[in-house]
Structures are given as structure tokens and as C-alpha cells.
């Protein structure tokens, strides 16, 4: 299985600080997606970045993609306690089944009020 791999596994920051999470993947992708999971709940889609895009913004979220390094990063600016959750990247590989995503193990973010 060619999961994305998030780094770090866990991150603890103070409210108001920025949080950066990284994702590395193995081979060529069609797109890469980021999801959030609050404790005990399902995953929620945050943002999708296509292989021909380098950066994408959505509110306080900024995602970058470097296909030459096979990596992506998710930046959450001005974090809030409500951002406490696990964050997953999901590369969608070019050669894989058209409907499947492969999820990493996630970064657990704790935002301390």
C-alpha cells in the first residue's frame, strides 16, 4: 500500500501559533487531499491540490505541493483550540484505481488554549 506519510506524528502548540504538517508520498500523483478528524468522528475533507498546482488556500489553511520532492505541507495559521484534531494526507496516485485514496497515519495536533 502506498500511503502518504505525515510528519510529525504529533504536534502541540499554543493557541494563536501556526501549525505546519508535512506529507511525503511515493510515486506520481493526480492530486493530493488533506482531511481532518476530530476525536471519535469521521474524516472531513479540507482541501484538494492537483499535481499541476503548487499552492492552494482555504481560509486559514495553506497547502503547498512539491512534486519534485514528492511532498506536501499543510499550514494552519493563527490556530485555535477547535483545530485540535488529527490531520491526514491522501495522495491519489496516477496509476492506481480511479476511485481510491490511500490515507496516511495522520498528525495529531493539539492546540493549547
Amino acid at each position, binding site marked *: *500500500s502506498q*500511503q502518504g506519510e505525515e510528519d510529525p506524528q504529533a504536534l502541540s502548540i499554543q493557541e494563536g501559533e501556526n501549525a505546519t504538517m508535512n506529507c511525503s508520498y511515493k510515486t506520481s500523483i*493526480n*492530486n493530493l*487531499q488533506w482531511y481532518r478528524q476530530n476525536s*471519535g*468522528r*469521521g*474524516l*472531513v*475533507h479540507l482541501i*484538494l491540490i492537483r499535481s499541476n498546482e503548487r499552492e492552494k488556500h482555504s481560509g486559514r489553511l495553506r497547502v503547498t505541493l512539491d512534486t519534485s520532492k514528492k511532498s506536501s505541507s499543510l499550514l494552519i495559521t493563527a490556530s485555535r483550540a477547535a483545530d485540535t484534531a488529527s490531520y*491526514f494526507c491522501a495522495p*491519489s496516485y496516477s496509476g492506481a*484505481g*480511479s*476511485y*481510491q*485514496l*490511500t*490515507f*496516511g*497515519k*495522520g498528525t495529531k495536533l493539539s492546540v493549547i488554549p
Partner: protein
Amino acid sequence: DVKVTQSSRYLVKRTGEKVFLECVQDMDHENMFWYRQDPGLGLRLIYFSYDVKMKEKGDIPEGYSVSREKKERFSLILESASTNQTSMYLCASSSGQVRQPQHFGDGTRLSIL
């Protein structure tokens, strides 16, 4: 908003029982997925379906089967439950366009005693 509903949030069953987990989506999505999520292992795909009566094995199909008789409903069946199937089970759906975001239910936490 897309709604994916899983029939139970918590379920306790006994070893050897046949267990049914139900999932319903209300957005006329072609694709539906079943994952299990375990600490340290992330999300692993069990089965998915891209059309009524169609199914494909994911990464860990052993001990499971699925049924999709109607477009909106995707059932996961544990033929003879075992303790190593104690886990969080997540259902998701996505539109028929390739590599689209997935929409998740809130999960069923299943305990096999």
C-alpha cells in the same frame, strides 16, 4: 451537504456472530467505501463499490464481505466475528468523477467479546 449515516455509533457483539454494519448516503454517489481504523495503523481499505452490485477488494478484505443492492446503501458483513476485528469502522462515499473527495460517516466503534 452530503450526509453519510452509519447505523450504529457503538456496537458490542460476541465471537462467532454474524455482524452487519450499515451505511447510507444521500447524495446519489456512485462510489462507497468501508475502512477500518486502528491506532498506529491509520485507515485501511476493506472493500469499495463503484456501482450497484459491484464490489472490489481493498487492502484487508479477509473475514469481511459487502453488499450493495441499492445505490444509497453499502453494508459490511463480518461473517464470523473475531476479537481481532474489534475496531473503528468508517464508511465513505464519493461521486463518480475520478479521485474526488470522500465524505465520511461518523464511524461505528465495534467491540467483539
